[in-house]
């Protein structure tokens, strides 16, 4: 078990290292010119742009820049744009080219909304998908089973941003059933927070749950055919105990794995939800930053998302090894 944890930790750290190098390299070798993004030509003279380039230390070799960037995250650093100088406290992800503020101060309040959307949608996926799959598995071959599985296929064919977009257009804008005032902080009022996020959760959850419904159905049917379920039946255990305790426990292991891998996709999938519902999250900030070539913000959002994905994958793997003893032993 210990060896397994160490091996997973090392590979996670290695992945993070490569991603962070790639992010810094993007800054150095990316074709868009930081000086031009900060201060376009008519506003700044060519000499001033050169001064900015020099101040940003763009000519330095990549390992020097990487070292500076990483030590900035840990210790903070001072960043100079030409004559202006900014104190960037740890964790320092640089200073926004456009707004001239510390990137971390700019985005730290946006992690909450993004995580709220993703976690809520994840819970909704499991709450909708797994029970539907169990329902279909218990009635396999019946017309109810076929109807449910057919419906999941149809839903899955709708690109999920379209599903979220249509839900927003008709239920929030058109019918006005749901609010459309973006994110409400959890600390202000949990009720308002949940009410504002309910439609994003339902839309994102429903469209992603179809895969889980089919998957749960498959692994439940497989579990029903196992010997221990037959033994439980012949012992005369109530059907509810057999389904919920015996079969579900075995069926849920692969579902957890897939869910963990999907969570990263879900996290980036919130970009649409944020754009469509006007939620001020990481994704929306990243989209704006791309539009403005605001490289430090792009770097920071990509890096933070990657960190969150790596951590979720790690947690899922560890959780998986607790659930399924075969993983530990192999």
């Amino acid at each position: 078990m210990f060896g397994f944890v160490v091996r997973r930790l090392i590979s996670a750290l290695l992945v993070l290292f490569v991603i962070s190098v790639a992010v810094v390299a993007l800054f150095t070798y990316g074709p868009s010119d930081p000086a031009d993004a900060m201060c376009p030509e008519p506003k700044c003279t060519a000499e001033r742009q050169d001064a900015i380039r020099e101040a940003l230390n763009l000519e330095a070799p990549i390992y020097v820049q990487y070292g500076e960037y990483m030590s900035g995250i840990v210790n903070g650093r001072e960043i100079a744009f030409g004559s202006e100088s900014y104190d960037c406290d740890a964790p320092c992800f640089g200073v926004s080219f456009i707004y001239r503020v510390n990137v971390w101060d700019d985005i730290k309040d946006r992690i909450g909304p993004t995580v709220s959307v993703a976690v809520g949608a994840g819970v909704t996926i499991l709450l909708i998908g797994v029970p539907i799959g169990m329902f279909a598995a218990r009635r396999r071959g019946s017309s109810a089973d076929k109807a449910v599985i057919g419906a999941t296929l149809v839903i899955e064919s709708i690109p999920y941003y379209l599903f979220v977009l249509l839900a927003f257009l008709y239920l929030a804008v058109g019918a006005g059933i749901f609010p459309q005032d973006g994110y409400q902080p959890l600390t202000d009022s949990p009720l308002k927070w949940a009410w504002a996020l309910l439609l994003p959760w339902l839309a994102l959850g429903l469209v992603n749950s179809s895969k889980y419904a089919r998957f749960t159905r498959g692994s439940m049917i497989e579990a029903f055919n196992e010997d221990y379920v037959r033994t439980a039946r012949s012992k005369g255990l109530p059907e509810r105990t057999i389904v919920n305790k015996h079969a579900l426990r075995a069926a849920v292991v692969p579902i957890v794995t897939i869910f963990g891998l999907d969570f990263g996709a879900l996290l980036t999938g919130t970009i649409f939800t944020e754009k469509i519902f006007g939620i001020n999250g990481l994704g929306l900030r990243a989209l704006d930053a791309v539009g403005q070539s605001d490289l430090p913000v792009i770097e920071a959002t990509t890096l933070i998302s990657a960190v969150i994905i790596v951590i979720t994958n790690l947690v899922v793997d560890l959780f998986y090894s607790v659930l399924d003893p075969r993983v530990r032993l192999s």
Partner: protein
Amino acid sequence: MTVSEVLIKGGRDPEINPEPSSSEVAGRSPMRIAMDRLRSDKVAMVCAGIVLVFVLIAIFAPLLCKLFGVEVRAGDPVTDTDSFNYPVIGPPNYGFTWEAPLGLEPNSGNDLLAEWFYGARTSLLVATVATIVSTIVGVVLGLIAGYSRGWGDRLVTFATDLFLTLPFLLVAIAVSPMLVERWKENPAMLDNASLIALIVILSVFGWMGLARLIRGEVVSLREREFIEAARVLGMPTHRILFRELLPNLVAPIVVSFSLSLPATIAAEATLAYLGVGVTGRPSWGQTILRAQNWFDEYPLFLYAPIVGIVVLVFALNLLGDAIRDAFDPKSFR
């Protein structure tokens, strides 16, 4: 999957194997058997028909436009829209007209039927090329990882994990403008820079699943006698990989291709909505992006591309499922 397994399965199923003469059956290859199973699957055939219609629309888009008397990207905001930017003919203010069967686009006055035909072309072109490229990359890397023990395997596995960890959408929206910027300087690529950037991004993020699948298959195949025999005969490694192993991997490759094609179409539309995507040529995703504020007044504007995407993706998904079942000797239908 071995031939004998398929034959036993095929012989048991009267629907799949209508002619009972066993001497004929023995001569059929697994590919033939799968094709025969597919041919007797009505849902699959209907879906294949629908997909074929879309492919024909994509290929003959200019001809179809001529047939309907419409022209792509020919709208003139001055003559084709009124002072409120509404189109002067067709919906939402006027009835149906043959001059523009799907109406004109508000603001620009472009013909929406022509946009739709050419949108099908963009969608299928991008998805097909990206899926082919990512399939080739996935197969080659999967073969290398599966067949080489040690560092080659570790390297490819690590790259697979790495690409699965990268936040795809964030990287796509960050990298795509840079690629476009760089390639625009090359005059040969000026018009197609955004198209090529999109295909590159979709390919780079599309190979991991297949690489894992192929690696797993190769790991079990490489221990089999025929590979051992080939090695003992002194066959060079590339010949073992491509002549001996590859033919045994046709089924997973075909299945993976047919299931990732609709996913790529959906991804293309998704990226277009985020502003990453083809510019300068019609695309369903771009039309949806422009149409969303008109959903109430002018639903046809929004729904024409949505119906296009959903029907095409749905048909491809069902077809992919049918192909998977046809290739799977264990499936009971």
